[in-house]
């Protein structure tokens, strides 16, 4: 198994994906810095400034909205095995296909964590630098900021797993990307508008994500719009476990169904 994991890591680091991944991570972290320099007080509508707890939380929450990006990278990576038909050779070298998927999940969990840490580190540096440039102090203690960013990094690792599992499940790169992207951009937000579903929100990927990242921004916005009380989010570790559960279910379904299909 270690050989398979090591091979998947090599596959990941020798394609261009790691380059795009690094750029995306640096970009999303840098964007937070840019927004911090502009200052939440200058947003439309104006939000509390960088020197307030709320203002800092808004910026960290925005970073939390980019957690789907590594999921897309994970999805693209697995689906590309089918697209470029390397799956044939891969299945020859690892005929028991679950071993191959398990190795991918482990390797990409590592890749997702690196992505998350890179994003979080860039965002942290950018936030503190922006505050220094503007001559203010962040509205939250440094330890709190770092802890929240760390949770986002962890969320990104879990999301990468989710992306890998969905990619293995759907196999078609475009379909998989549309499903993953579409879900986080549209479907879940739309679901939130249905009162019955709203109670389930804490257990949906987005709700579990919000619990893990500590961002209730979206849930509260929806509650504001619909005039209902925001659903109570799960504790962060439980939220993480729920997300991990989704990834494992998708992985298990991928092993049970599509991976058994003929590779013709």
């Amino acid at each position, binding site marked *: 198994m270690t050989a398979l994991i090591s*091979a998947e890591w090599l596959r990941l680091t*020798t394609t261009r994906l790691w380059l795009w991944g690094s750029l995306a991570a640096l970009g999303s972290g840098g964007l937070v810095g840019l927004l911090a320099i502009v200052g939440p007080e200058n947003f439309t509508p104006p939000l509390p400034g960088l020197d307030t707890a709320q203002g800092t939380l808004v910026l960290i929450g925005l970073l939390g909205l980019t957690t789907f990006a590594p999921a897309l990278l994970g999805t693209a990576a697995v689906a590309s095995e089918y697209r470029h038909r*390397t*799956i044939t050779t891969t299945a020859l*070298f690892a005929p028991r296909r679950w071993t191959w998927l398990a190795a991918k999940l482990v390797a990409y969990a590592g890749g997702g964590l690196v992505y998350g840490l890179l994003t979080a580190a860039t965002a942290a540096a950018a936030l503190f630098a922006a505050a220094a440039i503007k001559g203010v102090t962040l509205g939250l203690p440094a330890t709190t900021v770092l802890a929240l960013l760390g949770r986002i990094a962890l969320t990104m690792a879990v999301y990468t797993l989710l992306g890998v599992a969905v990619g293995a499940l759907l196999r078609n790169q475009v379909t998989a990307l549309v499903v993953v992207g579409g879900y986080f951009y549209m479907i879940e937000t739309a679901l939130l508008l249905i009162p019955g579903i709203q109670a389930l929100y804490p257990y949906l990927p987005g709700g579990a994500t919000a619990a893990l990242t500590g961002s209730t921004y979206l849930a509260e916005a929806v509650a504001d719009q619909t005039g209902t009380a925001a659903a109570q989010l799960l504790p962060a570790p439980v939220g993480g476990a729920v997300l991990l559960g989704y990834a494992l279910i998708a992985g298990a379904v991928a092993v049970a169904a599509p991976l058994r299909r*003929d590779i013709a």
Partner: protein
Amino acid sequence: MSDWDIAVRGLTKTFGPVTAVSDLSFGAEPGTVTGFLGSNGAGKTTTMRMMLGLITPTSGTATIGGKRYADLRRPSATVGAVLDSSGFHPSHTALDHLRVYARMGRYGPARVARVADLTGVSAFAGRTTRTLSTGMRQRLNLATALLGDPRVLLLDEPSNGLDPEGIAWLRHFLRDLAAEGRTILVSSHVLGEVEQMADHIVVIHDGRLVTAGPIVELCGTAAVLVRSPQADLLKAWLLGDETGGAGRGESPREAGGEARVETTQPGALRIHGLTTAQVAAVAASRGIPLHEITLERPTLERAFLHLTGRAR
């Protein structure tokens, strides 16, 4: 049975209403190159993918040394396979591709360098796979298949896209591998090519076995083609027909020949069991003019078309 025997028994695969492979049985032995022949769509690729566990058979078994591919202890060290001609990540270099699969199979850098040298991949190891020609891709496929130094090789149309020089190289390469005692099964629809490298052939048509055996037996012997304005008379003499007045000169039968003569068209004969010299001697002794006399060498193509019922 040795550990390197290929055994296919009653293999059947249906895709919905279509039967791709039907009750197919054959074998391949170490030290030989077995040509797996059939026209496009005959079921060659489906069969090879079933042998490698990529496609699940509807019924029947395909084993290597008595074991299914997926049950082999180290599959890539036992069987090497060349299937897709283009299963590469486009931004990988040829060397990246080899290194990824070497890691999967736990083969070291020395082995990567060795197979790259053996197959000529070294010459373009640093190029990304999207820039490789079809011939280079086939060499890279072969290098990947050889990573585990397998004793059994399954190659699906490996010469596709190779130039004549590449085909000659492949032929010698596979012959050498067989001489080392490996079992080699190579599918092709280019018969002339298989003829030059295979010891045994397996012919399938519409997913069914047509014939299997040593290539020399299946191709048969040479024939003599003759054109003559008195073809019917010559035929009678050659067959030692009584009315032809055998007895003068050397009759074919006395020469030990078991002659078979067919009239392929008016004025043209195909003669089996006699040499050109014997046919010419009979014609000369009877004063029969010959407009043409040719030795028709046996070809796999001829045998194949005959076997698959498409002989002209």
